[in-house]
């Protein structure tokens, strides 16, 4: 399935875009999706960093299974205030 992924701040700048689309198999998890995005943009984060993902406006665990239509965003370390 095709999933849209939004990128913010550091990830947006490093990817060079704020919205991308990746193709993952049915049953793919958040971790699978993050891997797919990282393969497309290897400069997103060093290998030892785990990328935080929000699904439908909530922080998601790596093992969460994704569904078509999910609102997915990659969340770099936050620093509001």
């Amino acid at each position, binding site marked *: 399935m095709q999933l849209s992924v939004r990128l*913010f701040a*550091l990830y947006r700048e490093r990817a060079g875009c704020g919205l991308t689309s990746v193709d993952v198999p049915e049953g793919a998890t958040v971790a699978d999706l993050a891997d797919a995005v990282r393969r497309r943009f290897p400069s997103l984060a*060093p290998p030892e960093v785990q990328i935080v993902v929000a699904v439908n406006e909530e922080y998601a665990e790596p093992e969460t299974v994704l569904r078509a239509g999910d609102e997915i965003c990659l969340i770099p370390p*936050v*620093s*509001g*205030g």
Partner: protein
Amino acid sequence: MIEITHQPLNPEEITDRVRQDSNGAVVTFLGATRDFSEGKRVVHLEYEAYEEMAYKKLEEIRQELRDEFGVEDVAIAHRIGPVDIGQVSLVVAVASPHRREAFLACHEAVNRLKQIVPIWKKEVFEDGAHWVACEDHDFSSADIAAETEVEVLDADDD
């Protein structure tokens, strides 16, 4: 009241929204852009937000303050986009009958905002810029060497 806006913030107006005759105490926090960060002169800041989720997380914080401190009157406003030195990027106002809850809840609101709300701050210096709190995302020289090696191997394969 929760607001994420590109406009300059009006702290007095935001504070007035939490005032009520039953509230004897109002605590307001202003977060402002500092002129120096780690010894380097800052030209300005830029804030970016994942707005839909940020609103949701700020509402969560309001609920946490209700549960933990019993405070009902909370206003949080965050400015995004470029913010000049000395300007206000964040206003948190909490009012309650007594002062202790207002102080603790306001402090906690700011702490939680910095932990869970998807808003990002970029410091722009005279000679560059960086996203705050992303040090763990710096590529080490080991990372870069490994990356280069992969590319060399790939080239050999062709």
